[in-house]
């Protein structure tokens, strides 16, 4: 099977830490978290969340972000482009609003409730050759990127637009609260005093193409695995995450020692961080700089894979290691955590995404060969 190279040529994002990817990267490097406390989502309880500040309709903000990506590109339109969406809740926020107002389902439009509500919205603004939507909880958009990679690598498409998106919904906020994993302040991934995660919303859009542009970063490898352990808890030894990272490196023919930065899933929950740190340590030891950027962005759930892919791409373009804000005393004493943004010459960056059901995805990015 012939393999084409896959390039990330254009991207844009919106999240609580920035209305553009440039603003987001600046916020990460200067420790400006977008996480704030809110008391209106859970009765009698204040929790810290990542909410996009300006008032917006999902459809208009999503379409605007995609238009910015199209404007950056050499494409005139998306008519020969495959749309690949990754989302964990799709149109749930709209369904919730209607149901909690009406107390019945009658006015809920099934087309706007499900995951493909996102593709349905985008079809009003753009024409795509085809579309497909993935929903694997918090790995949704990492898997969307993996599918886009495969479509180009195997020569089916020349361009794929990947959209990662999730909005804040009561279902996810109260659901994670029911699991006891929400923090009341900004999360502290990998710290001994971490006490939970921050649910957040975000949109991240990347255009993958088979031909490079001057600033392209290459998507070199994808690794997938399943923990086969528990619905909501990762395997304690991180075996699933380890397998996904090994497969991504194998796919790209890259040795662990060549990786210059790992953007960890690093949610700030007890279970995730211990398990993931164990996996990273067993594959990379103390050599590779590691950080989680979720203390700045929060956990954007289905959008996280795409958002953190953009962070890896920008880190490679700028040759800057993004720091792990609020990490004071690491629980794992071996890993080489990045505490402050710093210039660093490196060729490859790995992004981890881990999800409910033990779904694991690792993406390997690099400077063009």
């Amino acid at each position: 099977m012939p393999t084409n190279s896959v390039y990330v040529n254009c991207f844009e994002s919106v999240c609580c830490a920035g209305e553009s990817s440039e603003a987001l990267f600046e916020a990460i490097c200067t420790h400006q978290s977008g996480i704030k406390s809110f008391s209106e989502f859970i009765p009698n309880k204040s929790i810290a969340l990542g909410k996009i500040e300006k008032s917006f309709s999902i459809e208009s903000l999503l379409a605007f972000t995609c238009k910015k990506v199209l404007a950056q590109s050499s494409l005139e339109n998306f008519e020969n482009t495959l749309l690949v969406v990754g989302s964990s809740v799709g149109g749930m926020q709209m369904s919730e609003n209607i149901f909690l107002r009406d107390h019945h389902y009658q006015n809920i439009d099934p087309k706007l409730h499900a995951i493909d509500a996102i593709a349905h919205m985008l079809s009003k603004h753009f024409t795509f050759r085809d579309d497909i939507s993935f929903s694997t909880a918090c790995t949704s958009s990492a898997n969307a990127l993996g599918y886009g990679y495969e479509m180009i690598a195997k020569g089916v498409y020349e361009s794929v637009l990947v959209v990662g998106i999730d909005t804040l919904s009561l279902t996810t906020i109260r659901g994670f609260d029911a699991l006891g994993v929400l923090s009341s302040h900004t999360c502290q991934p990998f710290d001994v005093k971490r006490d939970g995660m921050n649910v957040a919303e975000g949109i991240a859009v990347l255009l993958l193409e088979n031909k490079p542009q001057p600033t392209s970063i290459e998507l070199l490898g994808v690794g997938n695995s399943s923990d086969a352990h528990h619905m909501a808890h990762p395997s304690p030894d991180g075996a699933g995450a380890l397998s996904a990272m090994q497969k991504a490196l194998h796919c790209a023919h890259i040795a662990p020692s060549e990786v210059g930065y790992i953007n960890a899933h690093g949610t700030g929950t007890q279970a995730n961080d211990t398990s993931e740190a164990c996996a990273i340590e067993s594959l990379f030891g103390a050599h590779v700089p590691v950080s989680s950027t979720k203390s700045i962005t929060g956990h954007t759930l289905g959008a996280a894979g795409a958002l953190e892919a953009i962070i890896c791409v920008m880190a490679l373009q700028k040759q800057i290691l993004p720091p792990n804000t609020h990490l004071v005393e690491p629980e794992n004493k071996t890993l080489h955590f990045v505490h402050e943004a710093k210039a660093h010459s490196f060729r490859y960056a790995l992004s981890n995404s881990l999800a409910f059901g033990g779904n694991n995805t690792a993406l390997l990015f690099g400077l063009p060969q």
Partner: protein
Amino acid sequence: MRVNLEILSSAYLLGVKSIELPHIKELVPHMMTRRRLTKAAKICVELLNRVEHFEGGRILCGSAFGELETTANILNAIDKEEPLSPTDFQNSVYNTAVSYLSILYHNQNEILTLSCGDKTALNVLKAGALKALDGDTLLLLCFETLDIAGIEQVNHCIDYLESGVALVVRVTEREATLKLQKSELKGVPNSISEMLHVAQNAPQLESSIIEVNL
């Protein structure tokens, strides 16, 4: 690009209301585990038990509406200001059913879930065809579990509220023997229709091959 898939085995389940699964106790003997499974997970377990030639490997699954019962439980709890069930929440993600398959059968391979409205089954076949180019045998699944209280408020066209289809596939160079089209059975969800058509017709053919246009 056109990819031909050989259908090595197939199975389907359809229920006008709830699908009866008489073998589920034998298939998942541990009671506490069985009680945690969603209906979609139980349907997937039953389907996996009915197909041949799949001894673990990659799985692609599709559902337009995912885990509707747990989603509705959560919405109703929020509406009534009641505490949410943590189990309902962890079982509400679209990849719940196949994640339970991975846990029950210790399958540590790539397992992906799609949700593409009426195009779900067709897209599972497309994604399956793309993946099958690597040369392995894949399990393709799709399901809908719409049998929840009040579904008649939004459902005006689907008669079979519970359904599931499984296909075991691998890539082949041989010519297609079965046209890829929607099932002729009225009242089935569009989201399973193309896969159902394959599962309904494949067993009658000596060699069942479909052409998937990516």
